[in-house]
């Protein structure tokens, strides 16, 4: 799950539109045609691809990266057991084998997963990749020195909860077996049909123990992918990648790796990135960005320019921006109040604040509007485009607030973000029509993050959002609505504090399914069921417009990441 990126650089983010922080994920060009700008569409090998990013790819260590589908720049260097399908749109939301020969072979109840490595896999130094390296790579992600990854391994692997990594605990993690150099077996606590998705994360990258330099590994991680790290300046501010001659397309069906060299520059202001891409001077002609999209102002300009608009790709990422209620705080303990607010919300104002209809789609479901999530359309509290104030007032009256009420909406002060003051103000303005006076409580980003994820300090009414770790209902619904995931003394994401036995049971049941399509349908149904409790007011699903340099070809944007996939990009 992607979180409101605490690391989002406020400065960098300041003047752009919605900026996705590094490691953002999925999407799918619905209005596909995200091909490069006309001309000869056959991609060429060679050339240098420039990547202009707002945020540095910090801690370039497979153990420390929090990515979806293996990430973008990381996925050029780190191969994992499985990976995302490198296709446009919904097809890109599939999981496919990478180092492994298949996406994993589960036992009957999906508690044991077995992978076999392809033959002939090599590191950048020519040494062979073994299953022990996969195991070691996962183990070291448990070291407190190398914190930063997703929590699933700790939650799922048998006996992993207290494991402190190979530096302190020489015995290793018994939940991972490597019966031979090509086979690796995972033993899980409980059935997890979505394990193949998890195996896309960089923690599943092989790390040769002999080359491990602990916290220094990020400076020069050993490549298993098409490129190796030549320079990594200032903790990911400037990364130069060149071809790894031991990588071959024979073992890698996913990465195209057309350019000879990839030059990743970051720390740039988002508007500068877009300016540079649109000007496309010199090296910028062969430039892309993997973390910056067009802001509303830029979009307004681009849409009037044919040449420019031909260079814009559209991405969808599984994310929902919504209002969350804490039902232990009055008056939100009253479901009618929550429903009234659901009715009163003016999504068109909110969407405008988020950048307009081209950059946000109205959301009435909690799950993203993508098939892989099991999207099942519903609108339980129809507010129309601009809010149903009459219905809201009626409900408020029923709830005992005939004269309206005053509530406090908590949001982050970080600018141009999904939880930003602009959105909060739009909500505030919309609820006014329904007689609800909203006071805004803007918190500094860290403070906001601390408060909303702590059951003791969680406000009653706040803006938040949830993004997909992988394109499936599991990581979308479970952390938020599974009652057993309420964390009392740490970061809690079940902000509605929902602990409903039937919901919990259904989550367990779906997790057992290894048929991902079947699982998706049931996630959709569960979503609707939870929606009835009005614990959230879904506001919108963001849409991303990505501008590329004029010499860029073969633009692929999957629904998994929503960003253009640089492993597929070619330079003219």
């Amino acid at each position, binding site marked *: *799950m992607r*979180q*409101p990126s*605490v*690391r989002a*650089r*406020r*400065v*960098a983010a*300041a*003047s752009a539109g919605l900026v996705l922080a590094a490691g953002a994920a999925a999407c799918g060009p619905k209005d596909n045609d995200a091909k490069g700008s006309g001309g000869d569409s056959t991609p060429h090998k060679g050339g240098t691809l420039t990547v202009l990013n707002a945020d540095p790819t*910090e*801690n370039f260590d497979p153990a420390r990266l*929090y990515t979806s589908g293996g990430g973008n720049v990381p996925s050029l260097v780190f191969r994992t057991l499985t990976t995302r399908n490198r296709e446009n749109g919904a097809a890109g939301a599939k999981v496919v084998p990478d180092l492994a020969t298949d996406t994993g072979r589960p036992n009957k109840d999906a508690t044991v997963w077995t992978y076999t490595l392809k033959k002939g896999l090599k590191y950048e130094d020519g040494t062979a990749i073994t299953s022990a390296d996969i195991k070691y790579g996962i183990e*070291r992600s448990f*070291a*407190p*020195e*190398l*914190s*930063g990854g997703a*929590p699933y391994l*700790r939650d799922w692997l048998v006996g992993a*909860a*207290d494991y*402190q*990594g190979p*530096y302190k605990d020489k015995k290793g993690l018994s939940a991972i077996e490597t019966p031979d150099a090509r086979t690796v077996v995972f033993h899980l606590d409980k059935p997890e049909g979505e394990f193949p998705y998890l195996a896309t994360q960089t923690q599943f990258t092989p790390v040769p123990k002999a080359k*491990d*330099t*602990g*916290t*220094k590994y*990020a400076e020069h991680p050993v490549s298993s992918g098409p490129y190796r790290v030549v320079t990594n300046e*200032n*903790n990911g*501010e*400037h990364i130069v990648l060149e071809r790894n001659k031991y990588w071959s397309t024979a073992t890698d069906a996913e990465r195209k790796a057309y350019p000879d060299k990839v030059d990743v*520059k970051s*720390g740039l*202001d988002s508007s*500068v990135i877009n*300016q*540079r891409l*649109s*000007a496309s*001077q010199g090296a910028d002609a062969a430039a892309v960005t993997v973390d910056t999209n067009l802001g509303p102002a830029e979009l307004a300009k681009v849409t009037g320019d044919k040449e420019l608009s031909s260079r814009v790709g559209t991405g969808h990422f599984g994310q929902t921006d919504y209002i969350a209620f804490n039902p232990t705080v009055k008056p939100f303990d009253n479901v009618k109040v929550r429903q009234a607010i659901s009715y009163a919300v003016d999504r068109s104002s909110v969407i405008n604040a988020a950048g307009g209809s081209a950059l946000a789609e109205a959301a009435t479901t909690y799950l993203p509007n993508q098939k892989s999530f099991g999207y099942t359309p519903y609108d339980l509290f129809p507010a129309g485009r601009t809010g149903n104030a009459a219905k809201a007032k009626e409900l408020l009256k029923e709830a005992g607030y005939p004269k309206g009420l005053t509530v406090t909406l908590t949001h982050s002060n970080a600018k141009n973000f999904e939880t930003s003051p602009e959105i909060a103000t739009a909500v505030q303005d919309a609820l006014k029509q329904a007689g609800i006076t909203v006071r805004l409580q803007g918190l*500094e*980003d*860290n*403070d906001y*993050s*601390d408060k909303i*994820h702590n059951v003791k300090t969680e406000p009653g009414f706040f803006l938040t959002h949830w993004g997909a770790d992988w394109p499936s209902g599991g990581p979308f619904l479970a*952390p938020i609505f599974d009652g057993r995931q309420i*964390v009392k*003394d*740490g*970061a809690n*994401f079940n902000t509605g504090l929902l602990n409903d036995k039937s919901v919990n049971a259904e989550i367990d049941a779906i997790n057992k399914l290894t048929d991902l399509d079947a699982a998706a349908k049931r996630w959709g149904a569960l979503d609707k069921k939870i929606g009835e409790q009005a614990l959230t007011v879904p506001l919108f699903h963001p849409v991303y417009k990505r501008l590329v340099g004029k010499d860029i070809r073969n633009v692929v944007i999957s629904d998994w990441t929503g960003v253009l996939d640089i492993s597929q990009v070619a330079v003219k």
Partner: protein
Amino acid sequence: MSGFAGFALRRAMGAVITLLAISVIIYVVFYATPGNVAQITCGPRCSPEQVHQVAQQLKLDDPLYLRYWHFLEGIVVGQDYSTGTSVEHCSAPCLGQSYQSDQQVTQIILTKLPVSLSLVVGAMVLWLLMGVGTGVLSAWRRGRISERALTGLTLAGISTPVFVIGLLLMIVICGQLELLPFPEYVSLTDDPEQWAWGLLLPWFTLALSEAAYFARLTRASMLETLAEDHIRTFRAYGVGERSLVGRHALRGALAPIIALNANDFGSAVGGAVLIESLFGLPGIGQELVHAVNVVDLPVVVGMVLVIGFFVVLANAVADVLYAVADRRVVLT
């Protein structure tokens, strides 16, 4: 200058005290800042146990005074850090290690400082040229239309925020007219030409507002000098107006300009945050803002100390230059 050693010693001691006080203030302020450092470092989805482990790893559970003590210790004797696989020694003066990236703060500073210095030094040259030039010109042409135009221009420089000017300049000059490449930092040692081209616009933007102040200062001091008796002397001896303005009045205005320039240089090293973020220059200011956002205390302290050091140093240099420029001044 016989008292120079004494002056240097006194200034050095004063600087140490100032910097220590600054570091204490930063420690206290950031101790009070919201944001669970271990949680931020570990990642938002870390479990309480993991967060606890990270906190231990970073010694975040130590009381404040102990952490500060370790900090001082690191400066004096250096510190050892575990990378997991080995032990790294961070030799004195060690400002500690970033919570977020495990890089040594001294290392981070060494990589960021050249950027900030490049920016500020270049901008300084520009703002002196532009500011002093404008000032001299308007002092010379006082009372005429051209002076009013220059005065108006300098006031415009003062009253428009740099982030507006900078962006507009970039869009127009780099984007539309394509006169300059988009700003980018290339190390001076790598490619001096690229270095200069890449920094030209940031220099200009930073210099613009400063130049306005310098123009005003120059003009004011020059007019002040022009009103002084010794100018009357030279006028009474037939010395021409150009020499009066360009030689005598400018010389008189030089001392305050030099002094203020040094001061401004000091504060600009850390104060060019806006320019750095706007143009994506990976300098001290930008790094510092980032570190503040993620409550990366060692980096914040280290950076602030460096900035403080430059301000203190610049003040001392200003005094020395002032004394050199105006021999009548006694250094204390």
